[in-house]
């Protein structure tokens, strides 16, 4: 089976830093598997996500996504690759306030012909996704700013899923939700991702969520490769 993600001897160092922010010997996610990456803020998870999304390029090592080596691609090609094959869900404020719910969901299809093609009838697939995620017609016509945080996050899931991308990157998507909403949200996310065969890479500092995942990686454990056994975390805000 094809590896969705494959990292080998990956190093990343921010410009101007003397130590690597990220050093991962090996990380592998197969198709259909999901990965939970546990990491507090400052552990390098943001850097890892940006690397996985093709925004950053590793300084050395190998980063293969869907069998493609991201290292050899130009930035435009990486952007195209992300548009075609990835859905991203942020912690909060996922939606553009000036677009309707449906327009927000359909946004990736405007940047990726592949996803537009896979989505087929865009209205229908948007409606189907929103139906599955429990966002009824009454909610869809409202300005996105009037939706609750939980509803906004579900719209973000629909956006990440539209056009069947192979990889869903979720960066603490539940941290703004209360625990009941959170579990419901996770169930929906898994259900929909599995229905279309997408792999979820889920990053959170919340250990409760880890139980939903078969494969869990603690970033502090994998991150740390000689010659820098314990790199100083770079980040804004509080240290772990």
């Amino acid at each position, binding site marked *: 089976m094809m590896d969705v993600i494959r990292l080998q001897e990956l190093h990343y160092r921010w410009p101007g830093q003397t130590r690597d922010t990220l050093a991962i010997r090996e990380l592998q996610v197969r198709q259909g598997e999901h990965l939970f990456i546990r990491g507090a803020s400052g552990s390098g998870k943001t850097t890892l996500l940006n690397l996985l999304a093709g925004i950053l390029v590793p300084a050395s090592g190998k980063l293969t996504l869907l069998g493609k080596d991201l290292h050899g691609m130009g930035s*435009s090609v990486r952007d195209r690759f992300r548009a075609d094959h990835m859905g991203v869900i942020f912690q909060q404020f996922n939606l553009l306030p000036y677009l309707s719910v449906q327009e927000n969901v359909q946004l990736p299809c405007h940047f990726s012909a592949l996803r537009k093609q896979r989505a087929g009838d865009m209205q229908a697939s948007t409606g189907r996704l929103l139906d599955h995620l429990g966002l009824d017609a009454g909610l869809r016509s409202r300005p996105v700013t009037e939706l609750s945080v939980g509803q906004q996050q579900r719209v973000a899931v629909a956006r990440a899923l539209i056009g069947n991308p192979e990889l869903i990157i979720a960066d603490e998507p539940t941290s703004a939700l209360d625990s009941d909403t959170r579990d419901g949200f996770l169930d929906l996310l898994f259900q929909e991702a599995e229905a279309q065969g997408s792999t979820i890479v889920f990053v959170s500092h919340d250990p409760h969520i880890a139980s939903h995942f078969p494969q869990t990686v603690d970033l502090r454990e994998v991150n740390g490769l000689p010659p820098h056994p314990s790199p100083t975390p770079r980040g804004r805000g509080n240290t772990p």
Partner: protein
Amino acid sequence: MILLKLTLRSLWNRRTSLLLTLLSISISIMLLLGVDYIRKEAKSSFFSTISGTDLVVGARSGPVQLLLYSVFRIGDATNNISWQSYQDIISNPLVAWSIPLSLGDSHKGYRVLGTNQDYFRYYRYGDKQLLAFAEGKPFEGVFDAVLGSEVARKLGYKLGDNIILAHGTGSASFAEHADKPFHVVGILKPTGTPIDRTVHVSLEAIEAIHIDWVNGAPIPGYHINADDALRKDLHPKLITAFLVGLKTRAAAFRVQRTINEYPREPLLATLPGIALANLWQAIGMFETVLRIITGFVVVAGLLGMLTVLLSTLNERRREMAILRAVGAHPRQIFLLFVLEALVLVVFGCLLGMGLLYTALFSARPWVVAEYGFYLHTWIPDASNLLLLAVVAGLALLFSLIPGAIAYRRSLQDGLTVRV
């Protein structure tokens, strides 16, 4: 396409705060085009003051001064021309027609022009138009007067009214020719030229009102009343200037040289087109200044736009991260800002043009009533469009700054939403 849609929706979302920016851009566009319009109207009105005349002749001075007093009724002549020299010169077989002009008196601040019937027959302005009467007819009797449209309108004169001329050209002339009143026999239609501000009488009338005057003052103890004056010899002896129409334009330079070399009197003949161009060049400085000022107004409007674009950069960081996440390239983020500026400036231009059109349209009746000047409907021409293109180009140039900042930030931030 999606970028344009995003730009429009994003702008619409921020419409209240952008409305002022749009307004300031459109007002500066209106000023820019308005000044251009006024400049062109002023120029065309200026150059249409006299047309169809081949030479303007007066006592020797400068061509601009000659043009000023003979055509624009500004300033005074340094010297007069004898009637004999006038007759002598127009006897040249190349001369088709001529109009004698005698200046020096006024009526309530309006210049009085002594001339003859040929004035109504040959004087042309604008697009070679002859003078037309709103009411009445040309003067026939010695004490008949024909008023320019503004004189009649501002002073409220009707046909048959009596008016008193004053000696000299100041508005507060105290030496009046009160003993010899004139009556109004004709009122001209508005021309948009100094003719509107002129009182026209016959050359004989000028002789008659000065018959008991010498050296610019009444002769003490010597008085001739109006009736007696009519019996005197009223043939003109002096005129101030005259206009010449030639049988063929090509002869203008030849006749000009003949007049300039006229042995009995120092005279100056000038081609009105050349003198007008000289004069316009002299007073044309104002248009340059005006253009510079409006240029700065436009730059100020665009700087306002730049300020708004820059100030929204921070609050739009999240928006940029979302767009990056769905696959937008930093180049597209950059384009968003350029498009935004372009949309703003295009709408600013349209709104500015609308404002100018409305302003001119609503000012038209007032301007006609007040100045006898018809404001033509403003139709943007190629030079206006070029001007707008320059403004749009400038706006694009300005938008490169926020665009570049957003580009750099979206590279740095990546998927990280910094708030």
